[in-house]
């Protein structure tokens, strides 16, 4: 099957994540996701941003943290994920290098 359009307007991301537009605007204002485009009418979000938005909403709901706290949590989680990935990659390479 064919892939659907992988870019989304504000209206589409609201629908895809089941959020009102104020929530999405808040998430963008906090810099949690950074869509292309100058303002809400022209914003374009990609699939990755949908996933981040959904994650942000889950954390906001389940951990009862305000949006600026979520922005910090998301950036720390992303950094942690990157470091974990990098650590795993470097370990793997080290293993290759040390194994006979």
């Amino acid at each position, binding site marked *: 099957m064919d892939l659907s359009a992988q870019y989304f307007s504000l209206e589409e991301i609201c*629908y895809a994540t089941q959020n009102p537009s104020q929530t999405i605007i808040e998430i963008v204002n906090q810099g949690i996701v950074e869509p292309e485009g100058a303002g809400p009418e022209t914003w374009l979000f990609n699939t990755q941003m949908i996933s981040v938005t959904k994650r942000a909403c889950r954390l906001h709901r389940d*951990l009862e943290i305000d949006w600026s706290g979520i922005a910090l949590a998301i950036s720390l989680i992303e950094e942690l994920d990157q470091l974990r990935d990098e650590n795993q990659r470097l370990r793997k390479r080290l293993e290759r*290098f040390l194994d006979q």
Partner: protein
Amino acid sequence: MDFQDYYKILSVAPDADSKTIKTAYRKLARKYHPDVSEHHEAEEKFKQIAEAYEVLKDPKKRAQYDELREHGGQGYRQEQTQGTSGQHYSQSSSDHGDFSDFFSSIFGGAYQPEEGAGAHGFSQQGFSSQRAARKGQDIETDMPIFLEDTLATSSKPISYSLPHRDAQGQVSQVNKTLNVKIPAGVAEGERIRLKGQGGQGLGDAPSGDLYLRIRLVPHPLFDVEAHNLILTVPLAPWEAALGTSLEAPTLSGKIKITIPANSQSGQRLRIKGKGLVRKQGHGDLYAVLKVVMPGSVSEESKQHWQQLADAAAFDPRMEWRQ
């Protein structure tokens, strides 16, 4: 059906006040939230914690539960189970309707969030004013891809399970298989959205979406670094010293590479354009040299090494002596 001890789940006393319960929930939620936690049972634990909090934070539900608990949870088995496992958290993340059977048996069928409710059901609010019509569950699942398959756009089958509601409103898990076109150059962690391939909607609402998260399958020879590939090339000491030409594997057939004389272990040679596919062009392949000693050394070889040692006058630990 098993009796769930919600107080035990939240590690609070049965007479704990609402503030204590809230603090206990927040602490455990931070620890086990599947978006934060690496714990292997995080998803299952978090579901239990969220369910316990859902009941204990609400005085009406709590009173109902306490009454049942006082009577020893008659009609329920007393041991606690881990519940059903294997379902990815985000499969149910937009729908907290999958609380345990125990919960449903006390508080009724599919969980519906209260209007304006705080903690749970947040994502279901706001959009559709008609609660009866609700978009189906989004499903997120991993899509393992071999490095070789990222070089060109390919079609791959993906199987996943999703909740299906029959005419009587009974929900069961059904398996579904789709053929998905994976665009060339996909990267680790990238997501692909397939609209309308998630769980069915309630009422007239459309189905949820399927999100595929690309997972590059570890390769026996190549490591991935952004769009570059890394290949470890074992060399005999004399190959490193004298240089050599050898055939090396790439993702698309073998190529000849030239090792210059006097190469060092750990040195990287760049082979342009033989990495992974990018949106524009290709990444590179890096050959990392690794000098390997032969397993056993014959008497004759030993003599040669000795001659070399005498002639070379090389001190690899020069730095230690300064």
